[in-house]
């Protein structure tokens, strides 16, 4: 039977009489955990920000038609040439429509799928923006803007105006911020767009869209899906892209493959499209953990040292405890408790320090053209890191305390009492 109150009582007395070493050891842990919390919060905050910049605007799965040469050339359909070796030169793709066949039934079908959070139709087309004598090439996206706002954080990037303003105006356009700058246009102004075939269409600017990626802001604008179809003179089922948000992003690659086969269409999933972002996040996580673990190992060595010294100082006490009936395990627990108390105190303080530093960073102004919605440095306050932090503090101090405690456990009281 372990008598905890006695063991903790002795451990506490040891710690209190060695206040200086106790505080030093605890501060080591505080430093390690504080640094971990701050770094983890900042790094993952940054990750989320960067992910948000691209990933949140990228659909989990995008369905579209690619212009490509048929894999099955006509010659292979002839039975006569079945077992021959056919050489075809200069294969060219057929000029087929970019339109998705059966787009509306596919949309209907997707909306009934339990894994799908939402599916929105888009019409993406090349366009020229005309203002006075300026003519700029770019992209025009016809979209169901309210549905887009529900499924992505596009709202954050509409710096002037709102999605509702676009929905309510059949001739409205959300103009890319770069385009607006170049043509010195703002909300309320008029702009003309010209299709590739030369048809000119007047639109009213109801909002400005700034994604933070110059490449996009300099070329891309949003209109209502119907408006885009009208500009191109196409019917209501003319849709070039279907964007799908899933409930579980991890399922994207598998679903993309399935639909690719099912609908005979191109499907690209978010992982494939943004492989490099995952790598960046992983490297930042790696740095966070490498630095934190290093700090904690240093703190662990500090605790190990202090307990080792304490055990040498307390040899006589250990011998007395054993002589009066404390078992080796009791003695080991006395020292492990000390380590864990140090770990707990230092760890809790470390969480507070980490939280304070995070709050400080969180309130540090950070304004950049590229990120219109960001005013301060990003911080992730996920409780997970606080749980990991305290568990890590307890675990590392336990390990640091275990070795000296084991030594204390095996001290032979007779040797000490004899004075050899």
């Amino acid at each position: 039977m372990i008598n905890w109150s006695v063991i903790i009582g002795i451990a506490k007395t040891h710690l209190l009489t060695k206040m200086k070493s106790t505080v030093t050891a605890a501060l080591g842990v505080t430093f390690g955990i504080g640094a971990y919390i701050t770094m983890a919060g900042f790094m993952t905050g940054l990750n989320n920000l960067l992910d948000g910049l691209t990933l949140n605007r990228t659909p989990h799965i995008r369905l579209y038609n690619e212009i490509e040469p048929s894999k099955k050339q006509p010659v292979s359909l002839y039975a006569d040439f079945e077992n021959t070796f056919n050489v075809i030169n200069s294969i060219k793709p057929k000029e087929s429509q970019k339109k998705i066949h059966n787009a509306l039934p596919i949309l209907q079908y997707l909306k009934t799928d339990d894994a799908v959070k939402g599916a929105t139709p888009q019409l993406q087309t090349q366009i020229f923006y005309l203002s006075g004598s300026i003519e700029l090439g770019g992209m025009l996206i016809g979209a169901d803007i309210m549905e887009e706002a529900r499924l992505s954080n596009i709202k954050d990037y509409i710096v002037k105006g709102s999605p509702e303003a676009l929905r309510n105006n059949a001739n409205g356009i959300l103009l890319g911020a770069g385009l607006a700058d170049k043509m010195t246009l703002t909300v309320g102004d008029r702009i003309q767009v010209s299709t590739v075939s030369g048809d000119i269409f007047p639109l009213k600017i109801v909002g400005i869209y700034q994604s933070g990626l110059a490449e996009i802001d300099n070329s891309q604008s949003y209109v209502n899906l119907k408006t885009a179809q009208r500009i191109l003179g196409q019917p209501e089922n003319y849709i070039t892209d279907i964007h799908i948000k899933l409930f579980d992003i991890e399922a994207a690659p598998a679903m993309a493959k399935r639909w690719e086969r099912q609908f005979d269409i191109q499907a690209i999933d978010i992982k494939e499209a943004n492989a490099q972002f995952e790598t960046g996040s992983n490297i930042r996580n790696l740095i966070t953990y490498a630095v934190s673990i290093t700090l904690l190992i240093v703190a662990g060595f500090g605790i190990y040292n202090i307990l080792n010294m304490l055990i040498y100082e307390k040899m006589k006490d250990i011998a007395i405890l054993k002589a009066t009936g404390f078992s080796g395990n009791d003695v080991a627990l006395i020292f492990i408790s000390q380590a864990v108390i140090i770990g707990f105190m230092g760890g809790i303080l470390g969480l507070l320090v980490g939280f304070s530093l995070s709050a400080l960073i969180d309130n540090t102004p950070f304004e950049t053209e590229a990120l219109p919605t960001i005013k301060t440095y990003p911080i992730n306050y996920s409780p997970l890191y606080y749980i990991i932090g305290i568990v890590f503090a307890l675990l590392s101090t336990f390990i640091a305390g275990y070795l000296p405690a084991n030594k204390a456990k095996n001290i032979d009281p007779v040797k000490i009492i004899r004075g050899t």
Partner: protein
Amino acid sequence: MSLVLETRNIDKHFYKPKDFHVLKDISFKIKEGEFASIVGKSGCGKSTLLYILSTMDTEYTGELFLNEQLITGNSKEELSRIRNRNIGFVFQFHYLLSEFSVIENVMLPAKKLAEKSQKEIEQNAREKLEMLHIGHLAEQKASRISGGEKQRVAIARALINNPTILMGDEPTGNLDSHNSENVFNIFRRLSIEEGLSLLIVTHDNDFAQRTDRIIEMEDGRIIS
């Protein structure tokens, strides 16, 4: 009368630095309430024997009985429990936990035993201290009292769990004659009034002469 302690053919060697037969065929018995002393020249193996009897040293051959139960070969945990419950030990050097108060030192073995409530333990500890005339020192730090006082605190600690036997390795070795006399009187009274068995190693002939029985050792043997 029942036996408190019995040894049968205990032998012990030290193997370092070279083989040394330190205890040779030790067999003797201590009866309940007996006050015995062990005497012998320096180096004859008295302390070594006492460490074996107190169950702290397990490297020997032969058999050791406590309250007529064989305890040779018991696990370390088991021996700790026996030590805690049945054996009080007083060293030549007082050996108190210097960071704890006097009363805490006395209470510690009872807290480990955990058979009584905190309140009862504290009351018992105070009674023991009173009995040894050091009740007024209860709240003092153990490092802030005199040698003679420390020795009495150590005795109080050895008695806190009402052991069946009290062992001492020259408990008066470091005390002046007055304090020495004092400790002897305490032992004497415990043996008569409480029926406590005592086994005390001593170099003090006067002390030994006044005990019930003298066990004399020479070169690792009991000669009388």
